[in-house]
């Protein structure tokens, strides 16, 4: 017990300091929990404002005691290095820990402990937590919109076939690999379109016709983003090349096209496709709402894709162009074989971000009256039998979108690493 200094904890009295520190830290956290969740203030005897800060003070004293360098205990050293380097850092760490406890406990209660999972009507939900029965009851509507229940296998079948076709590219035999681009860029969109036209829309081969107004829910999100994504990429590429062209007319028309779409919000573009576009067509022609929406979103996102690809084109050194030209390559061969493969590799993160933005923008199609997932939520929320469950609906949709977008961004990071070549 030599030179016990409480201001400077040292290794000599390691065990004492560890016990004291842990005790004080635990006291702080317990004080906080009692204050917040059980409405008991164990530090009542202190004036109000001190009592308010006691959890922080206690925990800081605790962390101060265990701040001992080179103890040899691996966990403690890591802890000190990462969250407990000095008093300021310790106080921030405690604030974060308190914040986590403060938010996680009620959330856990709401999500799981007090939530209702079993039942089939509103009356089942009495525990005060989330009412997942609501999601269960409306699940089909959230996924397929107003698509007739008996016909929903058609949507499922289409998605499974398209997913299968996308995956099939992965198993191409080696000597057919050169057709892969053709397969993805031309064959797949056509097949998907035919599938959606004949299978989801129906009307032929004895299948009941389902109008596009009835499509909805998450499957509509997928359909809209899938087609916009496929079409916006080649258009964006052409625009990017056009913007860097030497030909004045091509350059300035691409430039103004890009700047126009980038300057206006998507919601006004959708407004335009809904109310203004029919005025521009010959009287009597009717273009399906869904097609109009897909065209609008495609053009809008193509402008953003074009700017991203342009960034990649600009990043390539001049020597690449000169070398290809000296081999006698023309404009198209030069770009298709030399420039674009390198440029596209560089802009994978940017392209992924544009695609993510596209998926996140699809809910906006409620403007023209198409109801995908978020639109269906707003519809379900106004159903008189199920009033007051908007929170569950939005949380559910939020989680679904988060999973889609987060996995997409993680995948793009993986792709970026895979294609990374040193230059």
């Amino acid at each position, binding site marked *: 017990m030599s030179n016990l200094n409480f201001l400077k904890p040292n290794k000599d009295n390691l065990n004492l300091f560890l016990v004291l520190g842990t005790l004080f830290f635990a006291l702080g956290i317990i004080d906080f929990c009692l204050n917040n969740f059980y409405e008991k203030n164990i530090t009542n005897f202190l004036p109000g404002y001190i009592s308010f800060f006691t959890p922080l003070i206690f925990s800081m004293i605790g962390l101060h005691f265990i701040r001992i360098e080179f103890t040899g205990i691996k966990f403690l050293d890591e802890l000190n290095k990462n969250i407990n*380097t000095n008093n300021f850092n310790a106080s921030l760490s405690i604030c974060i820990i308190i914040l986590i406890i403060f938010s996680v406990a009620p959330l856990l209660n709401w999500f799981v402990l007090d939530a209702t999972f079993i039942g089939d009507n509103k009356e089942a939900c009495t525990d005060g937590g989330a009412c997942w029965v609501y999601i269960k009851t409306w699940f089909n509507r959230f996924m397929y919109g107003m698509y007739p229940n008996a016909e929903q296998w058609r949507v499922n079948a289409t998605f499974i076939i398209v997913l299968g076709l996308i995956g099939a590219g992965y198993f191409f035999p080696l000597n057919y690999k050169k057709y892969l681009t053709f397969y993805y860029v031309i064959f797949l969109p056509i097949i998907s379109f035919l599938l959606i036209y004949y299978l989801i829309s129906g009307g032929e081969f004895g299948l009941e016709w389902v109008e596009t107004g009835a499509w909805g829910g998450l499957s509509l999100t997928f359909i809209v983003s899938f087609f916009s994504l496929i079409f916006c990429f080649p258009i964006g590429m052409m625009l990017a090349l056009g913007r860097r062209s030497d*030909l004045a007319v091509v350059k300035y028309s691409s430039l103004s096209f890009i700047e126009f779409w980038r300057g206006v919000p998507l919601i006004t573009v959708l407004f*335009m496709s809904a109310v*203004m576009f029919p005025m521009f067509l*010959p009287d009597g022609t009717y273009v399906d709402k869904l097609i109009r929406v897909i065209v609008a979103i495609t053009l809008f996102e193509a402008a953003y894709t074009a700017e991203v690809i342009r960034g990649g084109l600009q990043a390539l050194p001049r020597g690449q162009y000169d070398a290809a030209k000296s081999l006698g390559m023309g404009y198209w061969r030069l770009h298709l074989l030399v420039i674009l493969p390198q440029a596209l590799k560089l802009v994978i993160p940017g392209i992924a971000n544009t695609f993510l933005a596209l998926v996140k923008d699809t809910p906006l199609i409620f403007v023209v009256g198409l109801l995908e997932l978020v639109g269906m939520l707003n519809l379900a929320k106004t159903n008189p039998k199920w009033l007051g469950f908007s929170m569950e609906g939005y949380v559910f949709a939020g989680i679904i*979108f988060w999973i889609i977008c987060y996995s997409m961004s993680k995948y793009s990071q993986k792709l970026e690493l895979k294609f990374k070549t040193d230059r």
Partner: protein
Amino acid sequence: MKFKKILPQFLTLLFIVLIFGFFTMNAQENMDTRGIEFGFGFLTKEASFDIQFSLIDYDGSMSYARAYLVGLLNTLLVSFIGIILSTLLGAVIGVARLSPNYLIDKTASFYVEFFRNVPLLLQIFFWYFAALRALPMPEDAPLIFGSSFMTIKGLYTPAPIWNNFDIFMISLVVAMFVIYFFNKFAKKKQEEEGIQYPKFIISLGIFIILPLLTFIIGGVDLSWSFPELKQLAKTSFTYEGGMGIPPELIALTLALTLYTATFIAENVRAGIQGIGKGQKEAAASIGLTPNQVLKLVILPQALRIIIPPTTNQYLNLTKNSSLAAAIAYPDLVLVFAGTAMMQTGRAIEIVGITMATYLTISLAISVFMNWYNKRIAIQEK
């Protein structure tokens, strides 16, 4: 060779002309059959609809042009608040992501990964229809900071009542000018004679003291009007006096700020990470204090990386504010492209004006930012 250059240009031109010609011809024909005349004369007609929230005087007897102005100002208001708040939050989160403290780093990155992967529209709906609806009714609302009430009908805060407000504003402008010239003078002194003034403290002093003086000698007077509960009917209450901020504005600002801040945070992080360690060490080795290193070496370089993508985020925020239409916040899209279009039926003119407005705002911000960028860019010799 010449033919090869002219042909694609000619084809592009032909394509554009054909499309535009086709559209104009159809539009002409359609409008003829429906008996609509193309023109902007409707702007001066009486709008005869009300707008819930307006920064300037407005009522139904005023013209469509006035309604347009109200919508535009509301859009600018929410964009302005959103830009300021998301910059502050984004900077804090961006720095937090670089913190050596494990907990802070992880919490910040959790926030970023969560909020930027959920559609903005969904977030707006969440705040408006789910979170803010859980607030108490006016009669049960607790007092916040001794003066404000957060209720289901919005936030009620004390409103300032000014006397001679214009004199106060003039004093602020004068203070700005004085500070500008003082800084110029201080810089000159430092460069010529090496004398250093405590620039920041003196500037702050001028900024506070000059406007305060107007209270004493300029006849400026400030008092507060506090919101007070008032019973409208048996079960219907509201607050009188003070300033009422509608829940639509709160939900929209919250969602826009939280969403855009994640992108700004990533820009800030990339900017600070983009500066080599050598810069910091070199600056420290010539004897600069940590504060000076940050102010003179790190920030000027980091800002060059941070500003261009952040400008894009500001533009996105302004454009995203048009989602206000979904929760009935009376912005440009709702007031003009919504209500006004339903009433007049002039789709082409109104959608055209709306798009032109956003285009102007976007181009103006990007022109300003290009100028600013050029000003702070490294001048290579």
